[in-house]
Protein backbone atom coordinates (compact mmCIF):
# COMPACT_ATOMS: atom_id res chain seq x y z
CA UNK A 1 0.00 0.00 0.00
CA UNK A 2 2.92 2.36 0.54
CA UNK A 3 3.35 4.86 -2.21
CA UNK A 4 6.13 6.28 -4.33
CA UNK A 5 6.63 10.02 -4.05
CA UNK A 6 8.14 12.01 -6.86
CA UNK A 7 9.11 15.65 -6.53
CA UNK A 8 9.84 17.56 -9.72
CA UNK A 9 11.22 21.10 -9.62
CA UNK A 10 9.58 21.83 -6.29
CA UNK A 11 10.05 25.45 -5.26
CA UNK A 12 8.45 26.84 -2.09
CA UNK A 13 7.97 30.40 -0.93
CA UNK A 14 7.15 32.17 2.31
CA UNK A 15 5.57 35.32 0.90
CA UNK A 16 8.34 36.84 -1.19
CA UNK A 17 11.07 34.65 0.29
CA UNK A 18 12.10 31.62 -1.74
CA UNK A 19 12.89 28.89 0.80
CA UNK A 20 13.69 25.96 -1.49
CA UNK A 21 14.38 25.86 -5.22
CA UNK A 22 14.02 23.12 -7.83
CA UNK A 23 14.05 20.08 -5.60
CA UNK A 24 13.95 16.84 -7.58
CA UNK A 25 13.82 13.55 -5.78
CA UNK A 26 12.00 10.25 -5.76
CA UNK A 27 11.12 8.34 -2.62
CA UNK A 28 10.57 4.62 -3.08
CA UNK A 29 7.77 2.83 -1.24
CA UNK A 30 8.55 1.15 2.09
CA UNK A 31 11.83 2.90 2.63
CA UNK A 32 13.09 5.38 5.18
CA UNK A 33 14.49 8.52 3.61
CA UNK A 34 16.43 10.96 5.75
CA UNK A 35 16.70 14.65 4.94
CA UNK A 36 19.81 16.21 6.44
CA UNK A 37 21.51 19.57 6.16
CA UNK A 38 22.33 22.72 8.10
CA UNK A 39 19.62 24.81 9.77
CA UNK A 40 17.56 26.93 7.40
CA UNK A 41 18.37 24.82 4.34
CA UNK A 42 14.72 24.00 3.66
CA UNK A 43 14.47 20.36 4.76
CA UNK A 44 11.41 21.05 6.89
CA UNK A 45 9.89 23.26 4.21
CA UNK A 46 10.25 20.46 1.69
CA UNK A 47 8.79 17.96 4.14
CA UNK A 48 5.83 20.21 4.84
CA UNK A 49 5.16 20.68 1.16
CA UNK A 50 4.84 16.90 0.73
CA UNK A 51 1.53 16.83 2.64
CA UNK A 52 0.51 20.39 1.82
CA UNK A 53 1.14 21.64 5.35
CA UNK A 54 3.39 24.38 3.98
CA UNK A 55 0.43 26.35 2.65
CA UNK A 56 -1.18 26.54 6.13
CA UNK A 57 1.02 29.55 6.89
CA UNK A 58 -0.28 32.83 5.43
CA UNK A 59 1.48 33.79 2.19
CA UNK A 60 3.21 30.41 1.76
CA UNK A 61 2.98 28.65 -1.60
CA UNK A 62 4.55 25.80 -3.56
CA UNK A 63 5.42 25.54 -7.27
CA UNK A 64 6.46 22.51 -9.30
CA UNK A 65 4.89 19.09 -9.08
CA UNK A 66 4.72 16.55 -6.30
CA UNK A 67 3.15 13.25 -7.21
CA UNK A 68 2.17 10.31 -5.12
CA UNK A 69 1.74 7.25 -7.35
CA UNK A 70 1.49 9.59 -10.34
CA UNK A 71 -1.27 11.78 -8.87
CA UNK A 72 -0.19 15.38 -8.47
CA UNK A 73 -1.18 16.43 -4.96
CA UNK A 74 -1.13 20.08 -6.02
CA UNK A 75 -3.77 19.58 -8.75
CA UNK A 76 -6.66 22.00 -8.50
CA UNK A 77 -9.26 19.31 -7.86
CA UNK A 78 -7.31 17.53 -5.14
CA UNK A 79 -8.90 17.49 -1.67
CA UNK A 80 -6.29 18.71 0.82
CA UNK A 81 -7.74 16.67 3.68
CA UNK A 82 -7.53 13.49 1.57
CA UNK A 83 -3.86 14.21 0.88
CA UNK A 84 -3.17 14.68 4.57
CA UNK A 85 -5.03 11.52 5.48
CA UNK A 86 -2.82 9.63 3.03
CA UNK A 87 0.38 11.39 4.16
CA UNK A 88 0.56 11.70 7.94
CA UNK A 89 2.96 13.88 9.86
CA UNK A 90 4.75 13.83 13.22
CA UNK A 91 6.04 17.16 14.47
CA UNK A 92 9.20 18.26 16.20
CA UNK A 93 7.48 18.92 19.49
CA UNK A 94 4.86 16.47 20.72
CA UNK A 95 1.45 18.13 20.35
CA UNK A 96 -1.23 15.94 21.94
CA UNK A 97 -4.63 17.62 22.11
CA UNK A 98 -4.86 18.92 25.70
CA UNK A 99 -8.61 18.52 26.10
CA UNK A 100 -8.55 14.87 25.08
CA UNK A 101 -7.64 11.69 26.95
CA UNK A 102 -4.96 9.30 25.71
CA UNK A 103 -7.62 7.18 24.03
CA UNK A 104 -9.32 10.18 22.44
CA UNK A 105 -5.98 11.48 21.20
CA UNK A 106 -5.16 8.22 19.45
CA UNK A 107 -8.53 7.97 17.72
CA UNK A 108 -8.86 11.72 17.10
CA UNK A 109 -8.10 11.34 13.39
CA UNK A 110 -10.70 8.61 12.97
CA UNK A 111 -13.32 10.20 15.16
CA UNK A 112 -13.03 13.68 13.67
CA UNK A 113 -13.35 12.10 10.25
CA UNK A 114 -16.63 10.46 11.12
CA UNK A 115 -15.88 7.03 12.62
CA UNK A 116 -18.31 6.53 15.53
CA UNK A 117 -18.46 2.81 16.28
CA UNK A 118 -16.84 2.26 19.66
CA UNK A 119 -15.60 -1.23 18.84
CA UNK A 120 -13.79 0.01 15.74
CA UNK A 121 -12.23 2.90 17.66
CA UNK A 122 -11.09 0.68 20.51
CA UNK A 123 -9.55 -1.82 18.13
CA UNK A 124 -7.79 0.92 16.17
CA UNK A 125 -6.51 2.56 19.35
CA UNK A 126 -5.00 -0.65 20.67
CA UNK A 127 -3.43 -1.47 17.31
CA UNK A 128 -1.92 2.00 16.91
CA UNK A 129 -0.66 2.12 20.50
CA UNK A 130 0.90 -1.32 20.13
CA UNK A 131 2.61 -0.26 16.90
CA UNK A 132 3.91 2.83 18.66
CA UNK A 133 5.31 0.72 21.54
CA UNK A 134 3.13 2.61 23.99
CA UNK A 135 0.34 0.15 24.74
CA UNK A 136 1.92 -1.49 27.80
CA UNK A 137 2.69 1.85 29.38
CA UNK A 138 -0.77 3.41 28.96
CA UNK A 139 -3.26 0.54 28.72
CA UNK A 140 -4.40 1.06 32.32
CA UNK A 141 -4.90 4.80 32.02
CA UNK A 142 -6.41 5.38 28.60
CA UNK A 143 -8.89 7.85 30.14
CA UNK A 144 -6.16 10.09 31.56
CA UNK A 145 -5.14 13.25 29.68
CA UNK A 146 -2.57 12.82 26.94
CA UNK A 147 -0.69 15.90 28.12
CA UNK A 148 0.13 14.14 31.41
CA UNK A 149 2.56 11.70 29.77
CA UNK A 150 6.31 12.23 29.64
CA UNK A 151 7.83 13.90 26.57
CA UNK A 152 8.91 10.64 24.95
CA UNK A 153 5.54 9.02 25.64
CA UNK A 154 3.75 12.07 24.24
CA UNK A 155 5.77 11.82 21.04
CA UNK A 156 4.93 8.13 20.72
CA UNK A 157 1.30 9.05 21.40
CA UNK A 158 1.49 11.49 18.49
CA UNK A 159 2.99 8.76 16.32
CA UNK A 160 0.18 6.42 17.36
CA UNK A 161 -2.33 9.15 16.51
CA UNK A 162 -0.71 9.54 13.08
CA UNK A 163 -0.64 5.84 12.21
CA UNK A 164 -4.16 5.22 13.56
CA UNK A 165 -5.63 6.82 10.44
CA UNK A 166 -3.53 4.34 8.38
CA UNK A 167 -1.71 6.74 6.12
CA UNK A 168 0.58 5.43 3.41
CA UNK A 169 3.39 7.85 4.03
CA UNK A 170 4.60 9.16 7.41
CA UNK A 171 6.55 12.40 7.51
CA UNK A 172 8.62 13.07 10.62
CA UNK A 173 10.02 16.53 11.30
CA UNK A 174 12.90 16.02 13.76
CA UNK A 175 10.74 13.71 15.88
CA UNK A 176 13.50 13.01 18.40
CA UNK A 177 15.01 16.46 18.87
CA UNK A 178 13.18 17.03 22.16
CA UNK A 179 13.72 13.51 23.49
CA UNK A 180 16.25 11.69 25.62
CA UNK A 181 18.37 8.84 24.14
CA UNK A 182 16.12 6.08 25.44
CA UNK A 183 12.96 7.55 23.94
CA UNK A 184 14.91 8.25 20.76
CA UNK A 185 15.91 4.59 20.59
CA UNK A 186 12.28 3.55 21.09
CA UNK A 187 11.21 5.76 18.21
CA UNK A 188 14.02 4.55 15.95
CA UNK A 189 13.00 0.94 16.65
CA UNK A 190 9.51 1.97 15.78
CA UNK A 191 10.64 3.32 12.42
CA UNK A 192 12.17 -0.04 11.55
CA UNK A 193 8.84 -1.74 12.26
CA UNK A 194 6.77 0.87 10.48
CA UNK A 195 8.91 0.54 7.36
CA UNK A 196 7.12 -2.73 6.56
CA UNK A 197 3.92 -0.84 5.97
CA UNK A 198 4.68 2.81 5.45
CA UNK A 199 6.97 5.03 3.47
CA UNK A 200 8.82 7.25 5.92
CA UNK A 201 10.56 10.56 5.34
CA UNK A 202 12.41 11.95 8.33
CA UNK A 203 14.12 15.29 8.84
CA UNK A 204 16.96 15.04 11.32
CA UNK A 205 19.89 17.06 12.57
CA UNK A 206 21.46 13.98 14.01
CA UNK A 207 23.66 12.38 11.37
CA UNK A 208 24.15 9.18 13.34
CA UNK A 209 20.40 8.86 13.43
CA UNK A 210 20.17 9.36 9.67
CA UNK A 211 22.87 6.71 9.19
CA UNK A 212 21.12 4.30 11.57
CA UNK A 213 17.55 4.47 10.38
CA UNK A 214 17.48 5.48 6.73
CA UNK A 215 17.89 3.63 3.45
CA UNK A 216 18.40 6.76 1.40
CA UNK A 217 19.67 10.16 2.45
CA UNK A 218 19.13 13.54 0.86
CA UNK A 219 21.55 16.34 1.69
CA UNK A 220 20.18 19.89 1.45
CA UNK A 221 22.24 23.04 1.73
CA UNK A 222 22.26 26.77 1.14
CA UNK A 223 25.00 28.97 -0.30
CA UNK A 224 24.47 31.71 2.26
CA UNK A 225 21.70 33.09 4.47
CA UNK A 226 18.78 34.35 2.38
CA UNK A 227 19.47 32.03 -0.54
CA UNK A 228 16.99 29.25 -1.29
CA UNK A 229 17.87 25.75 -0.11
CA UNK A 230 18.86 23.21 -2.76
CA UNK A 231 19.24 19.46 -2.91
CA UNK A 232 22.98 18.81 -3.13
CA UNK A 233 23.10 15.03 -3.17
CA UNK A 234 20.62 12.19 -2.89
CA UNK A 235 21.85 8.62 -2.72
CA UNK A 236 21.90 5.44 -0.68
CA UNK A 237 22.65 6.23 2.95
CA UNK A 238 25.64 3.91 2.90
CA UNK A 239 27.15 5.81 -0.02
CA UNK A 240 26.43 9.27 1.38
CA UNK A 241 28.14 8.47 4.65
CA UNK A 242 31.08 6.51 3.26
CA UNK A 243 31.83 7.90 -0.16
CA UNK A 244 29.75 10.95 -1.09
CA UNK A 245 30.19 12.21 -4.63
CA UNK A 246 29.89 15.90 -3.72
CA UNK A 247 32.59 17.79 -1.85
CA UNK A 248 29.96 19.76 0.11
CA UNK A 249 28.30 16.61 1.39
CA UNK A 250 31.61 15.26 2.56
CA UNK A 251 32.42 18.54 4.31
CA UNK A 252 29.08 18.49 6.08
CA UNK A 253 29.07 14.89 7.27
CA UNK A 254 32.66 15.04 8.40
CA UNK A 255 31.84 18.15 10.40
CA UNK A 256 33.95 20.59 8.43
CA UNK A 257 30.96 22.85 7.85
CA UNK A 258 27.43 23.39 9.08
Amino acid at each position, binding site marked *: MAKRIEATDVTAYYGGFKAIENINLTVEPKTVTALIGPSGCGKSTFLRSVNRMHE*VLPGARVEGSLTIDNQDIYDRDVDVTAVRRMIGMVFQRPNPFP*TMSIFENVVAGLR*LNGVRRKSILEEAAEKALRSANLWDEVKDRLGKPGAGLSGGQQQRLCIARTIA*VEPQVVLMDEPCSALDPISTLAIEDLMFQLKDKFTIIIVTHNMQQAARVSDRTAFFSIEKTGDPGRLIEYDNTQKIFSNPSQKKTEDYITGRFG
Partner: protein
Amino acid sequence: MTTTVTSHRPQPPAQPLTLRARRLPAYAAPVIAVVALLVSAGIVYGAGIGGPVLVVVLGALLYLGGLYAAANAVEGRRAARNRTWSALIHSAFVLAVLPLASVVWTLVSKGSERLDGNFFGTSMNNIGARDANGGAYHAIIGTLEQVGIATLITVPLGVLCAIYVVEYGRGRFAFTIRFFVDVMTGIPSIVTGLFVLAFWVLIVSPWFNDGRPGFSGFAAALALSVLMLPTVVRSTEEMLRLVPAPLREGAYALGVPKWKTILRVVLPTALPGIVTGIMLAIARAAGETAPVLLVAGGGAAINLNPFENNQSSLALFVYQQAGEASKYSPARAWTAALTLVALVLVLTVAAKLLARRNRLGR
Protein backbone atom coordinates in the same frame (compact mmCIF):
# COMPACT_ATOMS: atom_id res chain seq x y z
CA MET B 1 25.46 19.93 32.49
CA THR B 2 26.15 22.60 35.08
CA THR B 3 27.82 20.19 37.45
CA THR B 4 30.36 19.08 34.86
CA VAL B 5 31.19 22.68 34.06
CA THR B 6 31.78 23.58 37.68
CA SER B 7 33.85 20.51 38.41
CA HIS B 8 36.32 21.47 35.69
CA ARG B 9 36.78 24.94 37.10
CA PRO B 10 39.72 25.64 39.41
CA GLN B 11 38.63 25.55 43.04
CA PRO B 12 38.09 28.97 44.62
CA PRO B 13 40.76 30.11 47.08
CA ALA B 14 40.53 29.08 50.72
CA GLN B 15 38.79 32.33 51.71
CA PRO B 16 35.37 31.24 53.04
CA LEU B 17 32.45 31.79 50.68
CA THR B 18 29.45 32.21 52.94
CA LEU B 19 25.84 31.88 51.85
CA ARG B 20 24.51 32.99 55.21
CA ALA B 21 23.48 36.54 55.99
CA ARG B 22 22.08 38.22 59.05
CA ARG B 23 18.29 38.15 59.12
CA LEU B 24 15.74 40.11 61.10
CA PRO B 25 14.03 37.81 63.63
CA ALA B 26 10.55 36.59 62.70
CA TYR B 27 8.89 38.75 65.36
CA ALA B 28 10.46 41.94 64.00
CA ALA B 29 7.77 42.76 61.44
CA PRO B 30 4.74 42.41 63.81
CA VAL B 31 6.60 44.32 66.54
CA ILE B 32 7.39 47.16 64.12
CA ALA B 33 3.73 47.17 63.01
CA VAL B 34 2.43 47.44 66.59
CA VAL B 35 4.96 50.15 67.49
CA ALA B 36 4.10 52.07 64.30
CA LEU B 37 0.38 51.93 65.13
CA LEU B 38 0.96 53.05 68.73
CA VAL B 39 3.19 55.95 67.67
CA SER B 40 0.70 56.92 65.00
CA ALA B 41 -2.18 56.81 67.51
CA GLY B 42 -0.15 58.93 69.88
CA ILE B 43 0.55 61.54 67.21
CA VAL B 44 -2.98 61.65 65.78
CA TYR B 45 -4.88 61.72 69.07
CA GLY B 46 -2.24 63.78 70.84
CA ALA B 47 -2.47 66.51 68.22
CA GLY B 48 -6.22 65.92 67.86
CA ILE B 49 -6.08 65.95 64.06
CA GLY B 50 -8.12 62.91 63.09
CA GLY B 51 -9.71 59.57 63.82
CA PRO B 52 -8.95 55.86 63.38
CA VAL B 53 -8.61 56.05 59.56
CA LEU B 54 -5.75 58.52 59.81
CA VAL B 55 -4.15 56.35 62.53
CA VAL B 56 -4.12 53.35 60.17
CA VAL B 57 -2.83 55.35 57.18
CA LEU B 58 -0.08 57.06 59.19
CA GLY B 59 0.67 53.76 60.94
CA ALA B 60 1.12 52.01 57.59
CA LEU B 61 3.54 54.72 56.42
CA LEU B 62 5.49 54.54 59.69
CA TYR B 63 5.55 50.74 59.39
CA LEU B 64 7.03 50.92 55.88
CA GLY B 65 9.65 53.43 57.01
CA GLY B 66 10.47 51.52 60.20
CA LEU B 67 10.71 48.21 58.37
CA TYR B 68 13.06 49.71 55.80
CA ALA B 69 15.26 51.25 58.49
CA ALA B 70 15.40 48.08 60.60
CA ALA B 71 16.08 45.80 57.64
CA ASN B 72 18.65 48.23 56.28
CA ALA B 73 20.51 48.22 59.57
CA VAL B 74 20.51 44.45 60.06
CA GLU B 75 20.16 42.83 56.63
CA GLY B 76 21.52 45.39 54.20
CA ARG B 77 20.13 47.53 51.41
CA ARG B 78 18.96 44.81 48.98
CA ALA B 79 17.03 42.93 51.66
CA ALA B 80 15.53 46.18 52.97
CA ARG B 81 14.23 47.08 49.52
CA ASN B 82 12.86 43.59 49.06
CA ARG B 83 10.97 43.79 52.36
CA THR B 84 9.60 47.26 51.64
CA TRP B 85 8.37 46.28 48.19
CA SER B 86 6.67 43.12 49.43
CA ALA B 87 5.01 45.16 52.18
CA LEU B 88 3.85 47.70 49.56
CA ILE B 89 2.44 44.97 47.33
CA HIS B 90 0.60 43.40 50.24
CA SER B 91 -0.88 46.74 51.25
CA ALA B 92 -1.98 47.36 47.64
CA PHE B 93 -3.78 44.03 47.76
CA VAL B 94 -5.48 44.98 51.03
CA LEU B 95 -6.45 48.37 49.57
CA ALA B 96 -7.99 46.64 46.55
CA VAL B 97 -9.94 44.14 48.64
CA LEU B 98 -11.22 46.68 51.20
CA PRO B 99 -13.87 48.32 48.95
CA LEU B 100 -15.02 44.91 47.80
CA ALA B 101 -15.40 43.63 51.35
CA SER B 102 -17.12 46.86 52.29
CA VAL B 103 -19.62 46.51 49.43
CA VAL B 104 -20.39 42.91 50.32
CA TRP B 105 -20.78 43.79 54.00
CA THR B 106 -23.07 46.75 53.28
CA LEU B 107 -25.20 44.68 50.89
CA VAL B 108 -25.56 41.77 53.30
CA SER B 109 -26.24 43.87 56.39
CA LYS B 110 -28.73 46.22 54.77
CA GLY B 111 -30.17 43.75 52.30
CA SER B 112 -31.05 41.07 54.82
CA GLU B 113 -33.88 43.18 56.31
CA ARG B 114 -36.30 42.29 53.49
CA LEU B 115 -34.76 38.92 52.66
CA ASP B 116 -38.07 37.07 53.02
CA GLY B 117 -40.45 34.99 50.98
CA ASN B 118 -42.71 37.93 50.32
CA PHE B 119 -39.88 39.80 48.58
CA PHE B 120 -39.22 36.95 46.18
CA GLY B 121 -42.86 35.99 45.69
CA THR B 122 -44.65 39.25 44.99
CA SER B 123 -44.38 42.24 42.69
CA MET B 124 -44.85 45.95 43.36
CA ASN B 125 -48.34 45.89 41.84
CA ASN B 126 -50.78 47.94 43.98
CA ILE B 127 -48.14 48.63 46.60
CA GLY B 128 -48.47 52.14 47.91
CA ALA B 129 -46.02 54.30 49.82
CA ARG B 130 -47.46 53.11 53.17
CA ASP B 131 -47.27 49.39 52.39
CA ALA B 132 -44.41 47.50 53.99
CA ASN B 133 -44.85 44.54 51.63
CA GLY B 134 -44.00 44.35 47.97
CA GLY B 135 -41.21 42.50 46.27
CA ALA B 136 -39.00 42.07 43.26
CA TYR B 137 -40.48 38.96 41.66
CA HIS B 138 -41.29 40.89 38.49
CA ALA B 139 -37.82 42.43 38.42
CA ILE B 140 -36.07 39.07 38.87
CA ILE B 141 -38.16 37.64 36.01
CA GLY B 142 -37.26 40.68 33.90
CA THR B 143 -33.52 40.41 34.57
CA LEU B 144 -33.46 36.68 33.88
CA GLU B 145 -35.42 36.97 30.64
CA GLN B 146 -33.64 40.03 29.31
CA VAL B 147 -30.14 38.83 30.13
CA GLY B 148 -31.03 35.33 28.96
CA ILE B 149 -32.26 36.52 25.57
CA ALA B 150 -29.30 38.91 25.24
CA THR B 151 -26.93 36.01 25.97
CA LEU B 152 -28.66 33.79 23.42
CA ILE B 153 -28.21 36.51 20.80
CA THR B 154 -24.69 37.56 21.76
CA VAL B 155 -22.83 34.33 22.44
CA PRO B 156 -23.22 32.67 19.02
CA LEU B 157 -22.73 35.97 17.23
CA GLY B 158 -19.73 37.02 19.29
CA VAL B 159 -17.98 33.65 19.26
CA LEU B 160 -18.49 33.22 15.50
CA CYS B 161 -17.26 36.76 14.91
CA ALA B 162 -14.11 36.04 16.95
CA ILE B 163 -13.57 32.78 15.06
CA TYR B 164 -13.83 34.68 11.79
CA VAL B 165 -11.34 37.32 12.89
CA VAL B 166 -8.80 34.83 14.27
CA GLU B 167 -9.09 31.83 11.95
CA TYR B 168 -10.35 33.11 8.62
CA GLY B 169 -10.11 36.89 8.45
CA ARG B 170 -7.29 38.32 6.39
CA GLY B 171 -6.45 41.86 5.45
CA ARG B 172 -8.59 44.94 5.56
CA PHE B 173 -12.00 43.43 6.30
CA ALA B 174 -10.87 41.60 9.44
CA PHE B 175 -8.96 44.70 10.53
CA THR B 176 -12.10 46.82 10.10
CA ILE B 177 -14.16 44.40 12.18
CA ARG B 178 -11.59 44.43 14.98
CA PHE B 179 -11.48 48.21 14.87
CA PHE B 180 -15.24 48.59 15.19
CA VAL B 181 -15.43 46.01 17.96
CA ASP B 182 -12.88 48.11 19.83
CA VAL B 183 -14.95 51.23 19.19
CA MET B 184 -18.09 49.43 20.42
CA THR B 185 -16.37 48.64 23.72
CA GLY B 186 -16.48 52.31 24.58
CA ILE B 187 -20.14 52.99 23.81
CA PRO B 188 -21.98 54.20 26.94
CA SER B 189 -24.96 52.05 27.85
CA ILE B 190 -27.38 54.98 27.60
CA VAL B 191 -26.40 55.37 23.94
CA THR B 192 -27.18 51.74 23.13
CA GLY B 193 -30.50 52.29 24.93
CA LEU B 194 -31.24 55.32 22.76
CA PHE B 195 -30.19 53.38 19.66
CA VAL B 196 -32.61 50.56 20.39
CA LEU B 197 -35.31 53.08 21.34
CA ALA B 198 -34.94 54.89 18.02
CA PHE B 199 -34.47 51.82 15.89
CA TRP B 200 -36.50 49.02 17.47
CA VAL B 201 -39.11 50.60 19.70
CA LEU B 202 -40.03 53.53 17.47
CA ILE B 203 -39.51 52.09 13.98
CA VAL B 204 -39.73 48.29 14.05
CA SER B 205 -42.11 47.50 16.90
CA PRO B 206 -45.11 49.45 15.40
CA TRP B 207 -45.10 46.98 12.46
CA PHE B 208 -46.47 44.19 14.62
CA ASN B 209 -48.14 46.28 17.31
CA ASP B 210 -51.07 47.83 15.40
CA GLY B 211 -48.97 50.83 14.47
CA ARG B 212 -48.20 51.82 18.05
CA PRO B 213 -44.64 51.72 19.38
CA GLY B 214 -44.30 49.37 22.34
CA PHE B 215 -41.82 48.83 25.14
CA SER B 216 -40.75 45.25 25.71
CA GLY B 217 -38.22 43.15 27.57
CA PHE B 218 -36.96 41.98 24.19
CA ALA B 219 -35.99 45.54 23.27
CA ALA B 220 -33.98 45.70 26.51
CA ALA B 221 -32.35 42.38 25.58
CA LEU B 222 -31.35 43.89 22.23
CA ALA B 223 -29.74 46.88 23.93
CA LEU B 224 -27.93 44.61 26.40
CA SER B 225 -26.65 42.39 23.59
CA VAL B 226 -25.17 45.45 21.86
CA LEU B 227 -23.33 46.10 25.11
CA MET B 228 -22.21 42.50 25.56
CA LEU B 229 -21.05 41.86 22.02
CA PRO B 230 -17.67 43.64 22.10
CA THR B 231 -16.70 42.02 25.42
CA VAL B 232 -17.54 38.56 24.12
CA VAL B 233 -15.78 39.09 20.79
CA ARG B 234 -12.62 40.53 22.30
CA SER B 235 -12.23 37.96 25.08
CA THR B 236 -12.98 35.04 22.75
CA GLU B 237 -10.52 36.44 20.23
CA GLU B 238 -7.74 36.62 22.80
CA MET B 239 -8.47 33.09 24.01
CA LEU B 240 -8.44 31.67 20.47
CA ARG B 241 -5.12 33.37 19.80
CA LEU B 242 -3.68 31.64 22.87
CA VAL B 243 -4.36 28.19 21.38
CA PRO B 244 -0.96 27.05 20.10
CA ALA B 245 -0.59 26.73 16.31
CA PRO B 246 0.93 23.21 16.57
CA LEU B 247 -2.42 21.94 17.88
CA ARG B 248 -4.16 23.16 14.75
CA GLU B 249 -1.38 21.72 12.56
CA GLY B 250 -1.60 18.41 14.42
CA ALA B 251 -5.28 18.18 13.53
CA TYR B 252 -4.74 19.27 9.92
CA ALA B 253 -2.02 16.63 9.56
CA LEU B 254 -4.61 13.97 10.48
CA GLY B 255 -6.71 15.08 7.53
CA VAL B 256 -9.24 16.89 9.70
CA PRO B 257 -10.95 19.74 7.82
CA LYS B 258 -10.40 23.26 9.10
CA TRP B 259 -13.95 23.85 10.39
CA LYS B 260 -13.85 20.60 12.34
CA THR B 261 -10.43 21.43 13.74
CA ILE B 262 -11.83 24.71 15.04
CA LEU B 263 -14.95 23.06 16.45
CA ARG B 264 -13.36 20.01 18.06
CA VAL B 265 -9.81 21.05 18.92
CA VAL B 266 -9.47 24.84 19.08
CA LEU B 267 -12.75 25.74 20.79
CA PRO B 268 -12.57 23.07 23.53
CA THR B 269 -9.00 24.14 24.32
CA ALA B 270 -10.06 27.77 24.66
CA LEU B 271 -13.40 27.02 26.35
CA PRO B 272 -12.65 27.94 30.00
CA GLY B 273 -11.35 31.36 28.96
CA ILE B 274 -14.25 31.97 26.59
CA VAL B 275 -16.72 31.14 29.37
CA THR B 276 -15.00 33.63 31.67
CA GLY B 277 -15.35 36.34 29.02
CA ILE B 278 -19.02 35.54 28.51
CA MET B 279 -19.66 35.68 32.26
CA LEU B 280 -18.00 39.10 32.48
CA ALA B 281 -20.30 40.31 29.71
CA ILE B 282 -23.36 38.84 31.44
CA ALA B 283 -22.40 40.44 34.75
CA ARG B 284 -22.05 43.80 33.05
CA ALA B 285 -25.38 43.47 31.25
CA ALA B 286 -27.26 42.37 34.37
CA GLY B 287 -26.18 45.52 36.15
CA GLU B 288 -27.32 47.96 33.45
CA THR B 289 -30.17 50.32 34.30
CA ALA B 290 -30.37 52.97 31.60
CA PRO B 291 -31.17 50.82 28.54
CA VAL B 292 -33.86 48.91 30.42
CA LEU B 293 -35.45 52.13 31.60
CA LEU B 294 -35.43 53.54 28.07
CA VAL B 295 -36.80 50.60 26.09
CA ALA B 296 -38.57 48.29 28.56
CA GLY B 297 -40.00 51.14 30.58
CA GLY B 298 -40.00 49.42 33.92
CA GLY B 299 -43.25 48.42 35.58
CA ALA B 300 -44.71 47.30 38.86
CA ALA B 301 -46.61 44.25 37.70
CA ILE B 302 -45.45 40.76 36.81
CA ASN B 303 -45.02 40.40 33.05
CA LEU B 304 -43.75 37.00 31.98
CA ASN B 305 -43.85 37.82 28.28
CA PRO B 306 -40.66 39.54 27.17
CA PHE B 307 -42.11 40.41 23.77
CA GLU B 308 -44.96 42.58 24.94
CA ASN B 309 -45.51 45.43 27.38
CA ASN B 310 -43.33 46.92 30.06
CA GLN B 311 -40.86 44.90 32.04
CA SER B 312 -38.64 45.82 34.92
CA SER B 313 -35.24 44.48 35.91
CA LEU B 314 -33.35 44.20 39.18
CA ALA B 315 -31.02 47.10 38.41
CA LEU B 316 -33.94 49.27 37.38
CA PHE B 317 -35.86 48.16 40.49
CA VAL B 318 -32.95 49.28 42.68
CA TYR B 319 -32.84 52.64 40.90
CA GLN B 320 -36.60 53.20 41.25
CA GLN B 321 -36.91 52.03 44.86
CA ALA B 322 -33.93 54.12 45.91
CA GLY B 323 -35.74 57.21 44.68
CA GLU B 324 -39.17 56.32 46.03
CA ALA B 325 -40.77 58.51 48.68
CA SER B 326 -41.54 55.72 51.10
CA LYS B 327 -39.79 54.62 54.26
CA TYR B 328 -40.06 50.98 53.10
CA SER B 329 -38.45 51.35 49.70
CA PRO B 330 -34.74 51.67 50.70
CA ALA B 331 -34.86 48.21 52.28
CA ARG B 332 -36.36 46.80 49.06
CA ALA B 333 -33.61 48.47 47.03
CA TRP B 334 -30.85 46.97 49.20
CA THR B 335 -32.33 43.49 49.03
CA ALA B 336 -32.73 43.77 45.26
CA ALA B 337 -29.07 44.83 44.98
CA LEU B 338 -28.04 41.85 47.12
CA THR B 339 -30.18 39.57 44.96
CA LEU B 340 -28.56 40.89 41.78
CA VAL B 341 -25.03 40.33 43.09
CA ALA B 342 -25.94 36.85 44.34
CA LEU B 343 -27.54 36.00 40.99
CA VAL B 344 -24.44 36.98 39.02
CA LEU B 345 -22.25 35.10 41.49
CA VAL B 346 -24.31 31.93 41.21
CA LEU B 347 -24.32 32.15 37.40
CA THR B 348 -20.56 32.65 37.30
CA VAL B 349 -19.82 29.74 39.61
CA ALA B 350 -22.22 27.49 37.68
CA ALA B 351 -20.67 28.41 34.35
CA LYS B 352 -17.14 27.81 35.64
CA LEU B 353 -18.09 24.39 36.99
CA LEU B 354 -19.77 23.52 33.72
CA ALA B 355 -16.74 24.56 31.68
CA ARG B 356 -14.47 22.56 33.93
CA ARG B 357 -16.62 19.43 33.87
CA ASN B 358 -15.35 18.61 30.37
CA ARG B 359 -11.73 18.97 31.34
CA LEU B 360 -10.04 15.75 32.30
CA GLY B 361 -9.01 15.08 35.85
CA ARG B 362 -5.29 14.92 36.38
